[in-house]
């Protein structure tokens, strides 16, 4: 479990750094994908390794932990990420058509 | 699927009378040879990988030769006649040798790292698909519940290598080819998956092995292509889509030599070029083998007594010195694998035939074919295949036309409903009797 959590932490860190440092809009989106994947890894790991970290006193089905719900959450994350990417790409293309660049720093005309 | 029979209940028609413990390579290495568990596994994995890798390498060589000869026949030529005798047997090998000797070029405009790396993606994805294909009841490297889904997923990786390779070549031809290819392959994945689901509905499982087992018995009507009219239509639809998915003519706009030189691999030369070719021919085989497993009875010959005889070989176990090693079972496996490979090869030949017979479509026609025709057709087929057993149940009282004496579990739908209502004629009892 620790290993998977560390992998997910690395993915999250890289994703955040990528979001913060990249200037290309598509690059930023790749950072977002990394962050979402970090979440998926956590979910599936939580689903596999069963009992939660909190000692559950109710010794019923609750004690099993997230179970398959974790896998399903990961499925939803994947699909939502795909939906988001579709819109994101459309917006980046629209921006590129208007501004001739996909540089996020070029998006600085709106200011007050 | 309303409900499917649990895997444990699926009465396999070919289950041998007494279960024969087959010895895995890893097991033999650790028990017989005395290797450490991990190393036994590693060695076994290496051996299996070696076998699959060879299959991956050898099959394209054969198909290239077939294609050359067959296209020559179609065009009233002779084709290769020199290397390796009268029929040019070794022409593909000679081609390969020639390619390896050529200079390895990386264009200046290309991103060297990606240019070199991306060509492995299609090859790896097809090779991974090989590990998921069952060549017979027992021979499958990775037996997964969602085997078909996994294969489709793995095959969908191919497009990444194509588009990246095209993009990073730094050439307009490659770029255009890559974009066309990406658009085409991503679009055609939809009808591919939908049509592949039609037999899955009839068989009630996503596991290719279970689907194969399901089709035991006489060719008609046990092969899923005959299961219902929607399946038959789905087979044609699937095959069309599969041709497009392999980037073969008449859907090979991405590598249309008359307008794009060679499309996404224009800049590739030498061995790198041949990797793309290997991947293409191997993926032709993979989609054909999926078609065989899904529609054309998998590894069964379609002649029930012959199949029964081949299955009977499992019990033939002369002593060859290795404990637990059944020669007969091994032989049966090889023969079954041969059958499935033969069927798939025939389908590959049909692909070759199509390529050299039909004119190429325009790119907009390719996309229109997929999105305006094939996808709606696939949706209708899927719906029809779902409703078919219900309709039959309402009219004939059983979920298949020829139904109840053949298949172990006629249909997931049928199974569930029969389970509920025992008044219905229930032929499940003599499941698989035809074979034994």
């Amino acid at each position: 479990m620790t290993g998977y959590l560390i992998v997910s932490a690395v993915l999250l860190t890289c994703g955040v750094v990528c979001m913060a440092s990249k200037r290309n809009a598509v690059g930023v989106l790749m950072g977002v994908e990394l962050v979402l994947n970090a979440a998926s890894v956590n979910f599936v790991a939580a689903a596999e390794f069963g009992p939660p970290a909190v000692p559950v006193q109710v010794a019923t089905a609750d004690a099993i932990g997230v179970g398959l719900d974790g896998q399903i959450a990961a499925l939803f994350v994947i699909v939502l990420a795909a939906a988001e990417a579709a819109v994101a790409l459309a917006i980046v293309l629209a921006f590129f058509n208007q501004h001739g660049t996909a540089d996020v720093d070029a998006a600085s005309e709106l200011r007050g | 699927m309303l409900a499917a029979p649990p895997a444990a209940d699926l009465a396999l028609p070919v289950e041998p009378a007494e279960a024969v413990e087959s010895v895995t390579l890893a097991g033999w290495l650790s028990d017989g040879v005395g290797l450490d568990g991990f190393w036994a596994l590693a060695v076994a994995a290496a051996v299996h990988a070696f076998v699959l890798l060879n299959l991956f390498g050898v099959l394209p060589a054969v198909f290239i030769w077939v294609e050359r000869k067959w296209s020559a026949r179609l065009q009233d030529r002779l084709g290769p006649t020199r290397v390796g005798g009268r029929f040019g047997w070794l022409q593909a090998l000679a081609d390969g040798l020639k390619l390896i000797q050529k200079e390895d070029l990386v264009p200046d405009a290309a991103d060297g790292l990606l240019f070199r790396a991306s060509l492995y993606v299609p090859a790896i994805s097809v090779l991974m698909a090989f590990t998921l294909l069952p060549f017979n009841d027992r021979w499958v490297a990775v037996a997964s519940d969602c085997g078909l889904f996994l294969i489709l997923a793995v095959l969908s990786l191919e497009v990444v290598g194509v588009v990246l390779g095209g993009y990073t070549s730094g050439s307009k031809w490659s770029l255009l080819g890559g974009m066309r290819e990406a658009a085409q392959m991503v679009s055609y994945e939809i009808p591919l998956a939908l049509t592949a689901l039609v037999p899955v509905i009839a068989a009630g499982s996503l596991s290719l092995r279970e689907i194969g087992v399901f089709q035991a018995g006489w060719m008609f009507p046990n092969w899923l292509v005959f299961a219902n009219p929607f399946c038959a239509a789905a087979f044609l639809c699937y095959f069309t889509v599969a041709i497009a998915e392999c980037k073969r003519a008449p859907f090979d706009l991405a590598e249309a030599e008359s307008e794009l030189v060679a499309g996404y691999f224009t800049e590739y030369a030498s061995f790198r070029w041949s990797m793309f070719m290997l991947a293409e021919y191997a993926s032709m085989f993979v989609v054909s083998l999926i078609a065989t497993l899904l529609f054309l009875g998998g590894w069964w010959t379609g002649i029930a007594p012959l199949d029964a005889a081949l299955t009977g070989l499992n019990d033939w176990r002369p002593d060859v010195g290795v404990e637990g090693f059944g020669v007969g079972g091994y032989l049966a496996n090889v023969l079954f694998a041969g059958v499935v490979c033969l069927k798939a090869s025939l389908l590959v030949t049909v692909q070759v035939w199509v390529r050299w017979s039909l004119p190429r479509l325009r790119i907009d026609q390719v996309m229109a074919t997929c999105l305006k025709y094939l996808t709606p057709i696939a949706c209708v087929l899927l719906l029809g295949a779902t409703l078919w057993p219900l309709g039959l149940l309402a009219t004939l009282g059983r979920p298949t036309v020829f139904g109840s004496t053949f298949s172990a579990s006629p249909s997931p739908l049928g199974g569930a409903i029969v389970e509920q209502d025992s008044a219905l004629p229930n032929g499940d009892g003599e499941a698989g009797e035809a074979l034994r």
Partner: protein
Amino acid sequence: MTGADALFGVFAALACGGALGVAAFRSVARMAFSLVVCLSAVAGLFFLLNAPMVGATQLIVYVGGTVVLLIFGVMLTDAGVGRRMKIGLLETISMTFIAIGLAAALGWTAVGLGRAIPGAPVLDEEGVEIVAATPDTLRPIGLKFLGLGGESGVGFLLPFEIISVHLLVVLIGAAYLARAKRRVDATPETPPEATRETASDGLGEQA
């Protein structure tokens, strides 16, 4: 060391390496390739975690769909293959520090959390089973999507339906934005070049 451990090591290294590549590369195309490596390795981790369904979805939707979409975006918006983004030295240094800090904090949390979770990985000693045998997660997941609860536990019928609506809406929106403007009366300030127009048109159709 078991086979699963070895495979975990390989996949984890690939995933982390790919992620680092995404963060470190300055060429967008290389970032995309690193992303492919990273996401595929994550799919491998899912297989190790007995989630073949999730792994396959990751491959088919994420790697085969989303990333291809992103690469499309790169191809349509990037000026050239080798073009690198310029990032200032100060930014690089500050980013490095932030990254190290964040990674340390999260790693610390991860180690603690991993220690606290009692369940041991369900590993088979024989090794053969690790890749080959996966428990049947397909049917339970399917039933959960169809079910509302009852005996199969929490059902996810509602999210399943909501996400269908979501996808529908999003595709309409994306198609609208990516579609070239057909109307005569509205002239965009910088008319897009012909190639771009056809490209985005194709994309809209695809969506």
